[in-house]
Protein backbone atom coordinates (compact mmCIF):
# COMPACT_ATOMS: atom_id res chain seq x y z
CA UNK A 1 0.00 0.00 0.00
CA UNK A 2 2.98 2.30 0.48
CA UNK A 3 3.20 3.23 -3.17
CA UNK A 4 -0.32 4.70 -2.88
CA UNK A 5 0.88 7.43 -0.55
CA UNK A 6 1.97 10.92 -1.44
CA UNK A 7 2.13 12.27 -4.96
CA UNK A 8 1.51 8.95 -6.69
CA UNK A 9 -1.77 8.48 -4.88
CA UNK A 10 -2.97 11.98 -5.70
CA UNK A 11 -1.93 11.58 -9.34
CA UNK A 12 -3.88 8.31 -9.57
CA UNK A 13 -6.95 10.02 -8.13
CA UNK A 14 -6.65 12.83 -10.66
CA UNK A 15 -6.28 10.37 -13.54
CA UNK A 16 -9.32 8.42 -12.32
CA UNK A 17 -11.37 11.64 -12.16
CA UNK A 18 -10.21 12.72 -15.63
CA UNK A 19 -10.98 9.32 -17.14
CA UNK A 20 -14.31 8.79 -15.39
CA UNK A 21 -16.50 10.26 -18.22
CA UNK A 22 -14.92 7.83 -20.70
CA UNK A 23 -16.30 4.92 -18.67
CA UNK A 24 -19.54 6.52 -17.53
CA UNK A 25 -20.68 7.24 -21.10
CA UNK A 26 -23.98 8.62 -19.91
CA UNK A 27 -24.94 12.10 -19.01
CA UNK A 28 -26.88 11.13 -15.91
CA UNK A 29 -23.85 9.54 -14.23
CA UNK A 30 -21.67 12.44 -15.27
CA UNK A 31 -24.02 14.98 -13.72
CA UNK A 32 -24.28 12.89 -10.53
CA UNK A 33 -20.49 12.90 -10.33
CA UNK A 34 -20.45 16.65 -10.96
CA UNK A 35 -22.83 17.23 -8.07
CA UNK A 36 -20.73 14.97 -5.88
CA UNK A 37 -17.69 17.13 -6.69
CA UNK A 38 -19.67 20.24 -5.75
CA UNK A 39 -20.67 18.70 -2.43
CA UNK A 40 -17.05 17.63 -1.93
CA UNK A 41 -15.92 21.26 -2.25
CA UNK A 42 -18.42 22.25 0.44
CA UNK A 43 -17.34 19.27 2.59
CA UNK A 44 -13.69 20.37 2.29
CA UNK A 45 -14.69 23.71 3.78
CA UNK A 46 -16.71 22.15 6.59
CA UNK A 47 -13.72 19.96 7.40
CA UNK A 48 -11.51 23.03 7.86
CA UNK A 49 -13.61 24.60 10.63
CA UNK A 50 -14.88 21.36 12.15
CA UNK A 51 -12.16 18.80 11.45
CA UNK A 52 -9.06 20.97 11.73
CA UNK A 53 -10.21 23.79 14.00
CA UNK A 54 -12.61 21.78 16.17
CA UNK A 55 -15.64 24.09 15.86
CA UNK A 56 -18.67 22.04 14.86
CA UNK A 57 -20.45 24.44 12.48
CA UNK A 58 -24.05 23.44 11.71
CA UNK A 59 -24.77 26.35 9.37
CA UNK A 60 -22.50 25.18 6.59
CA UNK A 61 -25.31 24.15 4.23
CA UNK A 62 -26.97 27.52 4.71
CA UNK A 63 -23.79 29.27 3.57
CA UNK A 64 -23.84 27.07 0.50
CA UNK A 65 -27.38 28.30 -0.14
CA UNK A 66 -26.24 31.91 0.28
CA UNK A 67 -23.61 31.36 -2.42
CA UNK A 68 -26.12 29.69 -4.71
CA UNK A 69 -28.77 32.37 -4.20
CA UNK A 70 -26.23 35.13 -4.79
CA UNK A 71 -25.58 33.67 -8.23
CA UNK A 72 -29.28 32.97 -8.85
CA UNK A 73 -30.49 36.44 -7.89
CA UNK A 74 -27.70 38.30 -9.68
CA UNK A 75 -27.86 36.38 -12.94
CA UNK A 76 -31.64 35.95 -13.24
CA UNK A 77 -32.99 39.17 -11.73
CA UNK A 78 -30.13 41.54 -12.49
CA UNK A 79 -28.59 39.94 -15.59
CA UNK A 80 -25.12 40.01 -14.13
CA UNK A 81 -22.65 37.80 -16.07
CA UNK A 82 -22.18 34.40 -14.47
CA UNK A 83 -18.52 34.74 -13.47
CA UNK A 84 -19.01 38.12 -11.83
CA UNK A 85 -21.95 36.66 -9.88
CA UNK A 86 -19.70 33.71 -9.06
CA UNK A 87 -17.07 35.99 -7.49
CA UNK A 88 -19.83 37.92 -5.72
CA UNK A 89 -21.01 34.63 -4.18
CA UNK A 90 -17.58 34.10 -2.61
CA UNK A 91 -17.49 37.68 -1.37
CA UNK A 92 -21.02 37.61 0.08
CA UNK A 93 -20.41 34.40 2.04
CA UNK A 94 -17.06 35.74 3.25
CA UNK A 95 -18.58 38.98 4.57
CA UNK A 96 -21.60 37.22 6.07
CA UNK A 97 -19.32 34.53 7.51
CA UNK A 98 -17.10 37.16 9.09
CA UNK A 99 -19.93 38.77 11.04
CA UNK A 100 -21.66 35.51 11.96
CA UNK A 101 -18.26 34.11 12.93
CA UNK A 102 -17.47 37.08 15.17
CA UNK A 103 -20.75 36.51 16.97
CA UNK A 104 -20.94 32.72 17.13
CA UNK A 105 -17.28 31.88 17.77
CA UNK A 106 -17.46 33.58 21.15
CA UNK A 107 -19.29 30.43 22.19
CA UNK A 108 -17.47 27.17 22.82
CA UNK A 109 -18.25 23.54 22.13
CA UNK A 110 -21.89 22.52 21.91
CA UNK A 111 -23.07 26.08 22.42
CA UNK A 112 -21.39 27.06 19.18
CA UNK A 113 -23.08 24.18 17.34
CA UNK A 114 -26.51 25.01 18.72
CA UNK A 115 -26.07 28.68 17.85
CA UNK A 116 -25.02 27.91 14.28
CA UNK A 117 -27.95 25.51 13.90
CA UNK A 118 -30.22 28.42 14.81
CA UNK A 119 -28.38 30.70 12.36
CA UNK A 120 -28.93 28.06 9.71
CA UNK A 121 -32.66 27.98 10.40
CA UNK A 122 -32.92 31.77 10.36
CA UNK A 123 -31.18 31.80 6.98
CA UNK A 124 -33.60 29.15 5.70
CA UNK A 125 -36.58 31.20 6.87
CA UNK A 126 -35.20 34.36 5.29
CA UNK A 127 -34.75 32.60 1.97
CA UNK A 128 -38.21 31.06 2.14
CA UNK A 129 -40.10 34.17 3.28
CA UNK A 130 -38.26 37.05 1.63
CA UNK A 131 -40.13 36.60 -1.64
CA UNK A 132 -39.20 39.91 -3.24
CA UNK A 133 -35.54 38.96 -3.08
CA UNK A 134 -35.45 35.16 -3.27
CA UNK A 135 -38.74 34.29 -5.04
CA UNK A 136 -39.73 32.43 -1.85
CA UNK A 137 -40.90 28.81 -2.05
CA UNK A 138 -41.22 29.05 -5.87
CA UNK A 139 -37.47 29.26 -6.14
CA UNK A 140 -35.30 30.73 -8.86
CA UNK A 141 -35.57 29.19 -12.32
CA UNK A 142 -33.58 29.57 -15.49
CA UNK A 143 -30.17 30.28 -14.01
CA UNK A 144 -27.69 30.45 -16.90
CA UNK A 145 -24.91 27.90 -17.16
CA UNK A 146 -21.39 29.24 -16.59
CA UNK A 147 -20.51 31.31 -19.64
CA UNK A 148 -17.57 30.22 -21.77
CA UNK A 149 -14.09 31.56 -21.16
CA UNK A 150 -12.40 32.05 -24.54
CA UNK A 151 -12.51 28.75 -26.41
CA UNK A 152 -13.81 26.89 -23.35
CA UNK A 153 -17.58 26.40 -23.32
CA UNK A 154 -19.48 24.93 -20.38
CA UNK A 155 -22.84 24.11 -21.97
CA UNK A 156 -22.58 20.33 -21.98
CA UNK A 157 -22.65 18.09 -18.90
CA UNK A 158 -19.17 16.85 -19.83
CA UNK A 159 -17.73 20.37 -19.93
CA UNK A 160 -19.46 21.14 -16.61
CA UNK A 161 -17.90 18.03 -15.16
CA UNK A 162 -14.39 19.16 -16.02
CA UNK A 163 -15.09 22.72 -14.89
CA UNK A 164 -16.22 21.56 -11.47
CA UNK A 165 -13.35 19.08 -11.28
CA UNK A 166 -10.92 21.94 -11.92
CA UNK A 167 -12.42 23.88 -9.00
CA UNK A 168 -12.27 20.81 -6.77
CA UNK A 169 -8.59 20.31 -7.56
CA UNK A 170 -7.90 24.00 -6.91
CA UNK A 171 -9.84 23.85 -3.63
CA UNK A 172 -8.00 20.74 -2.52
CA UNK A 173 -4.63 22.20 -3.43
CA UNK A 174 -5.30 25.37 -1.43
CA UNK A 175 -6.60 23.30 1.49
CA UNK A 176 -3.46 21.15 1.44
CA UNK A 177 -1.34 24.32 1.55
CA UNK A 178 -3.32 25.70 4.47
CA UNK A 179 -3.43 22.65 6.71
CA UNK A 180 0.24 21.79 6.23
CA UNK A 181 1.39 25.32 7.04
CA UNK A 182 1.97 27.16 10.31
CA UNK A 183 -1.52 28.57 9.87
CA UNK A 184 -2.94 25.03 9.78
CA UNK A 185 -0.94 24.22 12.90
CA UNK A 186 -2.57 27.18 14.66
CA UNK A 187 -6.00 25.82 13.67
CA UNK A 188 -5.12 22.37 15.00
CA UNK A 189 -3.74 23.84 18.21
CA UNK A 190 -7.14 25.44 18.81
CA UNK A 191 -8.81 22.09 18.15
CA UNK A 192 -6.57 20.22 20.61
CA UNK A 193 -7.17 22.65 23.44
CA UNK A 194 -8.18 26.27 23.13
CA UNK A 195 -6.76 27.07 26.59
CA UNK A 196 -3.38 25.65 25.64
CA UNK A 197 -3.44 27.37 22.24
CA UNK A 198 -4.11 30.71 23.94
CA UNK A 199 -1.32 30.11 26.44
CA UNK A 200 0.99 29.51 23.46
CA UNK A 201 0.20 33.01 22.24
CA UNK A 202 -2.38 32.16 19.58
CA UNK A 203 -5.09 34.78 19.18
CA UNK A 204 -8.16 32.56 19.54
CA UNK A 205 -10.80 34.80 18.00
CA UNK A 206 -8.66 35.79 15.06
CA UNK A 207 -7.62 32.23 14.32
CA UNK A 208 -11.13 30.81 14.63
CA UNK A 209 -12.69 33.63 12.60
CA UNK A 210 -10.16 33.17 9.80
CA UNK A 211 -10.86 29.45 9.69
CA UNK A 212 -14.60 30.07 9.73
CA UNK A 213 -14.47 32.61 6.89
CA UNK A 214 -12.25 30.35 4.76
CA UNK A 215 -14.56 27.43 5.37
CA UNK A 216 -17.75 29.28 4.41
CA UNK A 217 -16.07 30.68 1.30
CA UNK A 218 -15.67 27.06 0.17
CA UNK A 219 -19.39 26.59 0.85
CA UNK A 220 -20.18 29.80 -1.05
CA UNK A 221 -18.26 28.78 -4.16
CA UNK A 222 -19.72 25.28 -3.98
CA UNK A 223 -23.19 26.86 -3.89
CA UNK A 224 -22.33 29.11 -6.84
CA UNK A 225 -21.23 26.08 -8.88
CA UNK A 226 -24.38 24.26 -7.79
CA UNK A 227 -26.52 27.13 -9.12
CA UNK A 228 -24.72 27.00 -12.46
CA UNK A 229 -25.06 23.26 -12.73
CA UNK A 230 -28.57 22.54 -11.46
CA UNK A 231 -29.92 25.84 -12.89
CA UNK A 232 -32.77 25.88 -10.38
CA UNK A 233 -32.76 26.87 -6.70
CA UNK A 234 -35.31 26.28 -3.96
CA UNK A 235 -35.17 27.16 -0.25
CA UNK A 236 -34.58 23.48 0.58
CA UNK A 237 -30.94 24.01 -0.25
CA UNK A 238 -30.70 25.99 3.01
CA UNK A 239 -32.38 23.28 5.08
CA UNK A 240 -30.41 21.56 7.83
CA UNK A 241 -30.58 18.32 5.81
CA UNK A 242 -27.87 19.62 3.47
CA UNK A 243 -25.62 20.44 6.42
CA UNK A 244 -26.13 17.01 7.94
CA UNK A 245 -25.34 15.38 4.58
CA UNK A 246 -22.05 17.30 4.56
CA UNK A 247 -21.34 16.29 8.16
CA UNK A 248 -21.95 12.66 7.19
CA UNK A 249 -19.58 12.90 4.22
CA UNK A 250 -16.84 14.30 6.45
CA UNK A 251 -17.39 11.71 9.18
CA UNK A 252 -17.49 8.74 6.84
CA UNK A 253 -14.34 9.78 4.99
CA UNK A 254 -12.40 10.90 8.04
CA UNK A 255 -12.72 14.16 9.93
CA UNK A 256 -9.57 16.26 10.10
CA UNK A 257 -7.94 14.56 7.13
CA UNK A 258 -7.33 16.05 3.71
CA UNK A 259 -8.74 13.23 1.62
CA UNK A 260 -11.52 12.21 4.00
CA UNK A 261 -14.24 14.67 2.91
CA UNK A 262 -13.67 13.74 -0.74
CA UNK A 263 -13.77 10.03 -0.18
CA UNK A 264 -16.80 10.32 2.09
CA UNK A 265 -18.71 12.39 -0.45
CA UNK A 266 -17.99 9.98 -3.32
CA UNK A 267 -18.71 6.88 -1.26
CA UNK A 268 -22.00 8.10 0.21
CA UNK A 269 -23.16 9.45 -3.17
CA UNK A 270 -22.31 6.15 -4.81
CA UNK A 271 -24.12 4.22 -2.08
CA UNK A 272 -27.19 6.46 -2.34
CA UNK A 273 -27.25 5.99 -6.11
CA UNK A 274 -26.82 2.21 -5.85
CA UNK A 275 -29.72 1.98 -3.42
CA UNK A 276 -31.95 4.20 -5.55
CA UNK A 277 -34.09 1.19 -6.65
CA UNK A 278 -35.20 0.68 -3.05
CA UNK A 279 -36.73 4.16 -3.03
CA UNK A 280 -37.56 5.27 0.52
CA UNK A 281 -36.61 1.88 1.92
CA UNK A 282 -33.00 2.61 1.08
CA UNK A 283 -32.72 4.28 4.47
CA UNK A 284 -33.25 0.83 6.03
CA UNK A 285 -29.98 -0.27 4.45
CA UNK A 286 -28.26 3.07 4.67
CA UNK A 287 -28.84 3.61 8.40
CA UNK A 288 -27.25 0.37 9.63
CA UNK A 289 -24.30 0.75 7.23
CA UNK A 290 -23.64 4.21 8.62
CA UNK A 291 -23.93 3.03 12.23
CA UNK A 292 -21.58 0.12 11.58
CA UNK A 293 -19.09 2.49 10.02
CA UNK A 294 -19.15 4.86 12.99
CA UNK A 295 -18.75 1.95 15.43
CA UNK A 296 -15.94 0.16 13.61
CA UNK A 297 -14.21 3.12 11.99
CA UNK A 298 -14.80 6.03 14.40
CA UNK A 299 -12.04 8.05 12.72
CA UNK A 300 -13.58 7.51 9.29
CA UNK A 301 -11.95 5.60 6.48
CA UNK A 302 -8.97 7.85 5.89
CA UNK A 303 -8.59 8.64 9.59
CA UNK A 304 -8.43 4.97 10.53
CA UNK A 305 -5.92 4.27 7.82
CA UNK A 306 -3.69 7.18 8.87
CA UNK A 307 -3.88 6.12 12.49
CA UNK A 308 -2.82 2.57 11.66
CA UNK A 309 0.02 3.92 9.58
CA UNK A 310 1.16 6.20 12.41
CA UNK A 311 1.04 3.29 14.85
CA UNK A 312 3.10 1.08 12.55
CA UNK A 313 5.67 3.83 12.10
CA UNK A 314 5.66 4.30 15.86
CA UNK A 315 6.28 0.62 16.51
CA UNK A 316 9.21 0.79 14.09
CA UNK A 317 10.56 3.86 15.92
CA UNK A 318 10.21 2.12 19.28
CA UNK A 319 12.05 -0.93 17.97
CA UNK A 320 14.80 1.25 16.56
CA UNK A 321 15.13 3.18 19.82
CA UNK A 322 15.26 0.05 21.97
CA UNK A 323 18.98 -0.85 21.58
CA UNK A 324 20.02 2.70 22.47
CA UNK A 325 17.39 2.98 25.18
CA UNK A 326 19.85 2.30 27.98
CA UNK A 327 22.11 5.12 26.84
CA UNK A 328 19.31 7.69 26.65
CA UNK A 329 18.07 6.71 30.08
CA UNK A 330 21.50 7.44 31.42
CA UNK A 331 21.69 10.71 29.54
CA UNK A 332 18.39 11.71 31.05
CA UNK A 333 19.46 11.07 34.61
CA UNK A 334 22.55 13.19 33.98
CA UNK A 335 20.45 16.06 32.66
Amino acid at each position, binding site marked *: MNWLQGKTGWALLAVAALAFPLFAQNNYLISVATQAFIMAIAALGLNLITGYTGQFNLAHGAFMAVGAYTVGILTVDHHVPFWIAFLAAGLTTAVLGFFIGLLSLRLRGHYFSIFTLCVSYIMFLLIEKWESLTHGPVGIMGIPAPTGIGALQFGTPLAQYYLVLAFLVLGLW*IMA*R*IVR*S*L*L*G*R*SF*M*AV*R*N*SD*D*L*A*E*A*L*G*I*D*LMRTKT*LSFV*LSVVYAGFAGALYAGQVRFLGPDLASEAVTFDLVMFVLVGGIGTLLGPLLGTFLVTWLTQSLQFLQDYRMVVFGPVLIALIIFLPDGIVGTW*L*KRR*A*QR*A*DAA*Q*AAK*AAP*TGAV*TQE*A*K*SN*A
Partner: protein
Amino acid sequence: MLEIESLTKQFFGLTAVDDVSTRFERGQVSAIIGPNGAGKTTFFNLVAGTHKPSAGRIRFNGRDVTGLRPDHVAKLGIARTFQTTHLFDNATVLDNLIVGHRLRTQSGLWDVLANTRRLQDEERLCREKAREALDFVGLSHIAKRIAADITQEERKRVAFALALATDPELLLLDEPAGGVNPEETVGLAALIRKLVDHGKTVCLIEHKMDMIMRLADKIVVLNNGAKIAEGTPEQIRRDPQVIDAYLGVDHAAL
Protein backbone atom coordinates in the same frame (compact mmCIF):
# COMPACT_ATOMS: atom_id res chain seq x y z
CA MET B 1 10.62 40.45 37.51
CA LEU B 2 6.99 39.78 38.40
CA GLU B 3 5.36 42.05 40.94
CA ILE B 4 1.94 41.29 42.31
CA GLU B 5 0.07 43.98 44.18
CA SER B 6 -3.10 43.33 46.20
CA LEU B 7 -4.33 40.81 43.64
CA THR B 8 -7.94 39.77 44.22
CA LYS B 9 -10.33 37.59 42.28
CA GLN B 10 -13.95 37.09 43.18
CA PHE B 11 -16.20 34.57 41.48
CA PHE B 12 -19.69 35.75 42.38
CA GLY B 13 -19.59 35.55 46.18
CA LEU B 14 -16.44 33.43 46.48
CA THR B 15 -13.08 35.12 46.92
CA ALA B 16 -10.64 32.73 45.22
CA VAL B 17 -7.61 35.00 45.51
CA ASP B 18 -7.70 37.49 48.35
CA ASP B 19 -5.46 40.57 48.37
CA VAL B 20 -2.21 38.77 47.52
CA SER B 21 0.96 40.82 47.15
CA THR B 22 4.34 39.32 46.39
CA ARG B 23 7.23 39.45 43.94
CA PHE B 24 9.19 36.86 42.02
CA GLU B 25 12.84 37.57 41.29
CA ARG B 26 14.62 36.94 38.03
CA GLY B 27 16.66 33.75 37.89
CA GLN B 28 14.97 32.14 40.88
CA VAL B 29 12.62 29.26 41.47
CA SER B 30 9.56 30.43 43.34
CA ALA B 31 6.96 28.00 44.56
CA ILE B 32 3.33 28.49 45.47
CA ILE B 33 2.01 25.94 47.92
CA GLY B 34 -1.17 25.48 49.86
CA PRO B 35 -4.04 23.08 50.39
CA ASN B 36 -6.41 22.14 47.56
CA GLY B 37 -8.75 25.00 46.76
CA ALA B 38 -6.35 27.60 48.16
CA GLY B 39 -6.46 29.56 44.90
CA LYS B 40 -3.10 28.52 43.47
CA THR B 41 -4.28 27.72 39.95
CA THR B 42 -6.57 30.77 39.97
CA PHE B 43 -3.50 32.82 40.87
CA PHE B 44 -1.74 31.44 37.76
CA ASN B 45 -4.84 32.10 35.67
CA LEU B 46 -4.77 35.73 36.75
CA VAL B 47 -1.09 36.17 35.94
CA ALA B 48 -1.45 34.40 32.57
CA GLY B 49 -4.53 36.41 31.64
CA THR B 50 -7.04 33.57 31.57
CA HIS B 51 -9.10 35.40 34.18
CA LYS B 52 -9.26 39.13 34.71
CA PRO B 53 -8.54 40.15 38.31
CA SER B 54 -11.29 41.84 40.32
CA ALA B 55 -8.71 44.14 41.85
CA GLY B 56 -4.95 44.59 42.09
CA ARG B 57 -2.00 45.01 39.75
CA ILE B 58 0.36 42.63 37.98
CA ARG B 59 3.65 44.04 36.68
CA PHE B 60 6.04 42.05 34.50
CA ASN B 61 9.48 43.60 33.96
CA GLY B 62 8.03 46.87 35.18
CA ARG B 63 5.21 46.80 32.64
CA ASP B 64 1.60 46.66 33.77
CA VAL B 65 0.09 43.47 32.35
CA THR B 66 -3.07 43.40 34.47
CA GLY B 67 -6.04 42.05 32.52
CA LEU B 68 -4.17 41.43 29.27
CA ARG B 69 -5.39 38.53 27.09
CA PRO B 70 -3.51 35.22 27.47
CA ASP B 71 -2.00 35.39 23.99
CA HIS B 72 -0.62 38.90 24.70
CA VAL B 73 0.84 37.73 28.00
CA ALA B 74 2.48 34.79 26.19
CA LYS B 75 3.99 37.14 23.60
CA LEU B 76 5.47 39.27 26.38
CA GLY B 77 7.39 36.23 27.60
CA ILE B 78 5.30 34.43 30.19
CA ALA B 79 4.73 30.78 29.35
CA ARG B 80 2.64 28.35 31.34
CA THR B 81 1.97 24.66 31.58
CA PHE B 82 -1.27 23.03 32.68
CA GLN B 83 -1.90 20.15 35.06
CA THR B 84 -2.84 18.10 32.01
CA THR B 85 -1.38 18.80 28.60
CA HIS B 86 -3.62 18.07 25.64
CA LEU B 87 -1.45 16.82 22.82
CA PHE B 88 -2.60 15.77 19.38
CA ASP B 89 -2.31 12.04 19.93
CA ASN B 90 -2.11 11.02 16.28
CA ALA B 91 0.86 13.25 15.53
CA THR B 92 4.49 12.83 16.50
CA VAL B 93 5.94 14.54 19.55
CA LEU B 94 7.99 16.87 17.35
CA ASP B 95 4.93 17.78 15.26
CA ASN B 96 3.11 18.70 18.45
CA LEU B 97 5.87 21.13 19.39
CA ILE B 98 6.22 23.07 16.15
CA VAL B 99 3.24 25.33 16.89
CA GLY B 100 4.99 26.43 20.11
CA HIS B 101 7.01 29.11 18.32
CA ARG B 102 4.07 30.26 16.18
CA LEU B 103 3.59 33.37 18.34
CA ARG B 104 6.97 34.74 17.20
CA THR B 105 6.07 34.40 13.50
CA GLN B 106 4.18 36.68 11.15
CA SER B 107 3.00 34.50 8.25
CA GLY B 108 -0.67 34.84 7.43
CA LEU B 109 -3.07 33.54 4.83
CA TRP B 110 -1.36 35.32 1.97
CA ASP B 111 2.02 33.76 2.82
CA VAL B 112 0.36 30.35 2.82
CA LEU B 113 -1.35 30.80 -0.56
CA ALA B 114 1.74 32.25 -2.23
CA ASN B 115 4.13 30.00 -0.30
CA THR B 116 6.35 33.00 0.39
CA ARG B 117 9.96 32.98 1.46
CA ARG B 118 8.91 34.32 4.85
CA LEU B 119 6.62 31.33 5.45
CA GLN B 120 9.35 28.87 4.50
CA ASP B 121 11.87 30.59 6.76
CA GLU B 122 9.45 30.76 9.64
CA GLU B 123 8.46 27.11 9.29
CA ARG B 124 12.11 26.16 9.40
CA LEU B 125 12.60 28.37 12.46
CA CYS B 126 9.64 26.80 14.27
CA ARG B 127 10.95 23.32 13.52
CA GLU B 128 14.40 24.26 14.84
CA LYS B 129 12.90 25.75 18.00
CA ALA B 130 10.89 22.59 18.54
CA ARG B 131 14.00 20.43 18.16
CA GLU B 132 16.00 22.67 20.49
CA ALA B 133 13.28 22.55 23.12
CA LEU B 134 13.02 18.78 22.81
CA ASP B 135 16.79 18.44 23.16
CA PHE B 136 16.73 20.68 26.20
CA VAL B 137 14.19 18.54 28.05
CA GLY B 138 16.09 15.38 27.08
CA LEU B 139 13.51 13.87 24.77
CA SER B 140 15.14 14.07 21.34
CA HIS B 141 15.10 10.27 21.17
CA ILE B 142 11.28 10.26 21.10
CA ALA B 143 10.85 13.08 18.57
CA LYS B 144 9.25 10.76 16.05
CA ARG B 145 7.10 8.74 18.47
CA ILE B 146 3.38 9.45 18.32
CA ALA B 147 2.17 11.48 21.26
CA ALA B 148 -0.46 8.90 22.27
CA ASP B 149 2.24 6.41 23.29
CA ILE B 150 4.53 8.42 25.53
CA THR B 151 4.65 8.08 29.32
CA GLN B 152 3.22 10.52 31.84
CA GLU B 153 6.69 11.75 32.73
CA GLU B 154 7.53 12.28 29.04
CA ARG B 155 4.25 14.16 28.69
CA LYS B 156 5.34 16.49 31.51
CA ARG B 157 8.65 17.09 29.73
CA VAL B 158 6.83 17.73 26.44
CA ALA B 159 4.71 20.33 28.26
CA PHE B 160 7.96 22.04 29.38
CA ALA B 161 9.28 21.88 25.81
CA LEU B 162 6.09 23.42 24.44
CA ALA B 163 6.37 26.28 26.94
CA LEU B 164 10.08 26.70 26.13
CA ALA B 165 9.41 26.90 22.40
CA THR B 166 7.59 30.19 22.99
CA ASP B 167 10.94 31.77 24.07
CA PRO B 168 9.69 32.80 27.51
CA GLU B 169 11.51 34.63 30.30
CA LEU B 170 9.18 33.37 32.99
CA LEU B 171 7.63 29.90 33.16
CA LEU B 172 4.56 29.18 35.26
CA LEU B 173 4.44 25.44 35.90
CA ASP B 174 1.24 24.00 37.33
CA GLU B 175 2.07 20.77 39.19
CA PRO B 176 5.03 19.87 36.98
CA ALA B 177 5.57 16.64 38.89
CA GLY B 178 1.93 15.66 39.38
CA GLY B 179 1.28 11.98 38.74
CA VAL B 180 4.87 10.85 38.27
CA ASN B 181 6.89 8.53 40.52
CA PRO B 182 9.51 9.74 43.04
CA GLU B 183 12.45 8.80 40.86
CA GLU B 184 11.04 10.71 37.89
CA THR B 185 10.24 13.63 40.20
CA VAL B 186 13.96 13.97 40.94
CA GLY B 187 14.64 14.09 37.19
CA LEU B 188 11.99 16.78 36.67
CA ALA B 189 13.40 18.82 39.55
CA ALA B 190 16.82 18.64 37.89
CA LEU B 191 15.23 19.84 34.67
CA ILE B 192 13.66 22.83 36.44
CA ARG B 193 17.08 23.68 37.92
CA LYS B 194 18.53 23.44 34.42
CA LEU B 195 15.89 25.93 33.17
CA VAL B 196 17.01 28.42 35.80
CA ASP B 197 20.68 27.79 35.04
CA HIS B 198 19.90 28.74 31.45
CA GLY B 199 18.50 32.11 32.45
CA LYS B 200 14.82 31.32 32.83
CA THR B 201 12.75 32.30 35.83
CA VAL B 202 10.40 29.67 37.19
CA CYS B 203 7.30 29.85 39.30
CA LEU B 204 5.58 26.59 40.14
CA ILE B 205 2.66 25.08 41.98
CA GLU B 206 3.43 21.74 43.58
CA HIS B 207 2.29 19.46 46.35
CA LYS B 208 5.48 17.40 46.59
CA MET B 209 7.12 18.99 49.63
CA ASP B 210 10.47 17.20 49.37
CA MET B 211 10.88 18.52 45.87
CA ILE B 212 9.80 22.06 46.79
CA MET B 213 11.99 22.31 49.86
CA ARG B 214 15.06 21.32 47.86
CA LEU B 215 14.26 23.27 44.71
CA ALA B 216 12.65 26.54 45.65
CA ASP B 217 14.51 29.74 46.43
CA LYS B 218 11.31 31.25 47.72
CA ILE B 219 7.95 29.88 48.79
CA VAL B 220 4.60 31.64 48.94
CA VAL B 221 1.89 29.88 50.96
CA LEU B 222 -1.76 30.43 50.10
CA ASN B 223 -4.70 29.36 52.22
CA ASN B 224 -8.32 30.20 51.37
CA GLY B 225 -7.05 32.57 48.72
CA ALA B 226 -4.93 34.66 51.08
CA LYS B 227 -1.19 34.68 51.49
CA ILE B 228 -0.36 33.34 54.96
CA ALA B 229 3.41 33.21 54.66
CA GLU B 230 6.30 33.85 52.31
CA GLY B 231 10.01 33.19 52.57
CA THR B 232 12.83 30.73 52.09
CA PRO B 233 12.16 27.00 52.58
CA GLU B 234 13.84 27.28 56.00
CA GLN B 235 11.52 30.07 57.12
CA ILE B 236 8.44 28.31 55.76
CA ARG B 237 9.32 25.08 57.49
CA ARG B 238 9.33 26.89 60.84
CA ASP B 239 6.24 28.99 60.33
CA PRO B 240 3.60 27.81 62.80
CA GLN B 241 0.74 29.09 60.65
CA VAL B 242 1.95 27.07 57.65
CA ILE B 243 2.43 23.96 59.74
CA ASP B 244 -1.07 24.37 61.01
CA ALA B 245 -2.72 25.03 57.65
CA TYR B 246 -0.81 22.80 55.34
CA LEU B 247 2.46 21.10 56.19
CA GLY B 248 1.52 19.21 59.31
CA VAL B 249 4.32 18.12 61.58
CA ASP B 250 6.01 15.80 59.03
CA HIS B 251 7.80 18.52 57.13
CA ALA B 252 8.10 20.96 59.96
CA ALA B 253 11.56 21.69 61.29
CA LEU B 254 10.62 21.18 64.90
